[in-house]
């Protein structure tokens, strides 16, 4: 199953989004929430993002979802550094993307479909 890493400036927010994915998906995907800078304030800690990718990797790929600013840049840089096509940053809003990706991953879909589900989640709300 594809794993998800949820990166927010706030660990509380990332954890709550992870809870929401568990509540809204019949079969929840492996999810790791990450948030906060190395001192615990709002921001991003790249070491923890790297650990989170390892923690949810079940061999079928990992999708990263980030909120904004340093979360996005950190995720983008890590994906570049890893150079592993099975680790992908989705161009998607954090909450909607996480729920869509979790539902799709839980259904056993491959990486590309999970990424597509997350990226389509931004559209069609109204």
């Amino acid at each position, binding site marked *: 199953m594809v794993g998800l890493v949820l990166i927010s400036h706030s660990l509380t927010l990332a954890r709550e989004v992870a809870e929401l994915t568990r509540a809204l998906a019949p079969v929840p995907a492996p999810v790791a929430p990450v948030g906060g800078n*190395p001192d615990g304030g*709002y921001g*991003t800690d790249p*070491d923890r993002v790297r650990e989170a990718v390892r923690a949810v990797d079940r061999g079928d790929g990992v999708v990263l979802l980030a909120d904004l*600013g340093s979360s996005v*840049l950190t995720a*983008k*840089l890590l994906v570049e550094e890893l150079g592993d096509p099975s680790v992908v940053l989705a161009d998607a809003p954090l909450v909607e993307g996480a729920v869509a990706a979790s539902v799709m991953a839980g259904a056993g879909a491959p990486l590309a479909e999970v990424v597509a589900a997350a990226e389509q989640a931004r559209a069609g709300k109204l």
Partner: protein
Amino acid sequence: MDTRFFAAWLEECARVVHEQRDYLTRLDAAIGDADHGTNLDRGFTGIRQALAEHTPPTPGALLALAGTTLVRKVGGASGPLYGSALRQMGKALGDAETIGLAELADALETALQAVRRLGGAEVGDKTMVDALSPACAALRLAVAEGIKPQEALSRAADAADQGAKDTISMQARKGRASYLGPRSIGHQDPGATSTALILAALRDVAVAWAES
């Protein structure tokens, strides 16, 4: 310019960023999230600690270590941006033990490309690119004219400073400030300002180096 020169530059950056921490944070409070000074200070303090434990043998390895430290310690958007800039500079310098001005100019150009690629910003978007890009151009021109390193780096620092001031009239198109739209006009960009400080530190170290 050898490893000691570049170590002196990083040390001067750490000193200046610490000294200007509150100023950078104040600039960031106007249009960003008020953490730029604190974040960079944490990053450069991390570099100081890393170099105290171990100073790599070449300028390239030194800048690569400094870049990785910034990526890991800063915690804000400036971490990946400045971190990859320094790492790419380090990579461009390779294994050489001493660096000439032309190599430094090329390395700074790769730093600019790294920042533009990761952040997706162009000149005029009110970001650090608006200080770094004119500094690279000034340095390239100085290399072509064959002037002394301290004068060349002085021109680069002046160009970065002017570039940072020029961001005042710009509307932000990247980062947290871009949410403000036209309301971001009238404020100097904190990232462009810290870039100008870092390049002024390079000039100051080059001047001191030439005198000693």
